[in-house]
């Protein structure tokens, strides 16, 4: 696993995911053709030591994408490469190893920890499952993981139960469990949205430090755009399963090119009573479902849409700063 700094940890090549095709329910409810395209030809890559923010409203496909990266869903089309290995091409045994390479951190630390397990058992469980049978070694590694998640002194935490911990401490336990197998990639789904404001920064700093020190990579899912620049190097904006804009986090935030990114930014509340939110602009057209299927998916809400947006799917353009935008109104030069 040696390699250069830019070594790719995760690569999504034209990933699509369609739900409802030939499912048992389609016959049952008499709607044979109800297909939902949760992801539509999404391509992304993530190198070692980097954090990618995945942003979109509910129903944008963020969670489907996370499930595919975790190997919990298989893409309908396209390829998923983790550490250069195509997941569709590997054997069952290799797939087992893959599961140790990608780990998940959930949104709700109250729900993601077993209330009847001590902290030590929760954090040590992945080792047990993966054949580390020596109890002494397990204990040593559990303590090290807790220390690394800044639960210090670790000895004071191993025998405690989740209900004895604060929300922030619980999330640190979940993080210790996620890093104990030394994964290459973390997937964090809204890891601070359930936490108190005063401890959020601590969890973000911890995640960033772990990614840097251990040279992992992380997919950070959020709908809170104001957090993106706190932790992410890159950001990818999804709208209804399609990649609207992807690029370096700060430049996308400061100078959004896609109208959907602009809409998202304008919707974020600002802690200032004098702030006047920009008026929501009406869509340029009254569109049909057919338009959204044929043309740009954002045409249904886009205030800047033109006739071409209803008929043609916009190609993803690469701009001078390396960002990709799928919009007919954006030009390369």
């Amino acid at each position, binding site marked *: 696993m040696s390699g250069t700094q830019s070594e790719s940890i995760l690569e999504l090549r034209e990933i699509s995911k369609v739900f409802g095709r030939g499912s048992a329910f389609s016959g049952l409810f008499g709607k044979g053709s109800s297909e939902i395209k949760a992801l539509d030809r999404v391509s992304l890559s993530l190198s070692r030591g980097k954090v990618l923010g995945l942003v979109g409203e509910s129903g944008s496909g963020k969670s489907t994408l996370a499930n595919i990266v975790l190997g919990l869903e298989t893409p309908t089309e396209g390829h998923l490469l983790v550490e250069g290995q195509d997941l569709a091409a590997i054997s069952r045994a290799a797939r087992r190893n893959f599961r140790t390479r990608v780990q998940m951190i959930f949104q709700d630390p109250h729900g993601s920890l077993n209330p009847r397990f001590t902290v030590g058992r929760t954090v040590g469980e992945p080792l047990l499952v993966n054949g580390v049978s020596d109890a002494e070694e397990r204990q040593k590694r559990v303590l090290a993981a807790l220390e690394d998640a800044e639960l210090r002194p670790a000895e004071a935490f191993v025998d405690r139960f989740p209900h004895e911990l604060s929300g922030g401490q619980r999330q640190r336990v979940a993080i210790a469990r996620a890093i104990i197998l030394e994964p290459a990639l973390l997937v964090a789904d809204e890891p601070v949205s359930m936490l108190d404001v*005063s*401890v959020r*920064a601590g969890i973000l700093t911890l995640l960033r430090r772990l990614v840097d020190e251990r040279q992992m990579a992380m997919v950070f899912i959020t709908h809170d*755009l104001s957090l993106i620049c*706190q932790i992410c190097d890159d950001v990818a904006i999804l709208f209804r399963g399609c990649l609207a804009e992807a690029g370096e986090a700060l430049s996308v935030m400061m100078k959004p090119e896609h109208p959907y990114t602009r809409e*998202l930014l304008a919707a974020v*509340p600002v*802690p200032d009573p004098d702030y006047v939110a920009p008026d929501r602009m009406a869509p340029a057209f009254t569109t049909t479902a057919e338009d959204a299927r044929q043309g740009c998916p954002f045409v249904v809400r886009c205030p800047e849409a033109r006739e071409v947006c209803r008929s043609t799917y916009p190609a993803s353009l690469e701009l001078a700063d390396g960002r990709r935008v799928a919009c007919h109104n954006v030009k390369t030069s």
Partner: protein
Amino acid sequence: MAYLSIRDLSVAYRSRHGRVLAADRISLDVEKGGSLGLVGESGCGKSTLATALLGLLPKEAEVTAEALDLNGESLLGISAERLRERRWNEVAYVPQGAAVALSPVTTLHRQFTETWNAHRKEGRDVLLTKARELFQEVDLDPDWLKSFPHQLSGGMRQRAIIALALLLQPELLVADEPTTGLDVIVQRQVLDVLKRLQRDHDTTLVFVSHDIAVVAELCKSLAVMYAGRIVELGETHALLQAPKHPYTMALRRSFPDIRTPERPLLSIPGRPPALGASATSCVFADRCPFAERKCRETVPPLREVGGVNVACHFAESAGEMAEAFRSEAIWAEVKEV
């Protein structure tokens, strides 16, 4: 006279583990047509305070207050019958979990009808017109009235609940985290609706949230709560521009602002104190980098300093504290508990 007036309100819960004082001697006023945001972290007592306004506290709660007046009439010791009259007609509630606040087995129209019938004797003929108007007001197609709640998206349900809360034209709307859990786009729609209501109907609003940004956009005044106490209370603008309490300063710094995406966020070491007996010291003293002996020995009263009400012994030197806050090192002395 203030529309809503609270003096020395305390709420304690009896539980297996003893007594928990969730709100400790709270005093505040809200003018008619005004808006007050209650901000703070989990367990600070903001929801307890909001539910006390509706007389909805569980029976385990012990409420004591010198005054708890709504529109000049006390809510203390009020009969169940009178309380029922006042709810919906005078004060309505928008809860956080819109998904569970509506009945899943009846249409929205029926839920509007039932609410109306429970509180009004006559005027059933105008109900449908009224409901349709309210749906338009919250940007929902009135045809959705025929639907069941599960047919609506989360944001639509939340707006339907706001419409329902407005059915009997209450003077006061109490909203408890009504946008938490919604994505930014939907949150913006709900905020726009609430802003419009305040502007067009002169509805008084008490808005509970952990999200300073949301509260600051909506409310003219702000009460910052910590461990059951109000630590700072004042006009939103003044309070956020120049916070006088170290906790407000810290909270302000721990919250991201989309206009300055790169500004590092602050994590406040330690955790809030256990809510047992009434405070005998400053509740924030354990986590405050400026705490001195006086802070651990006497409770700072809420007093006016430079235009806002603040409960800090050292509020006069807020400027120096704010200056010191710029340095990260100041937090090193506060031990992680």
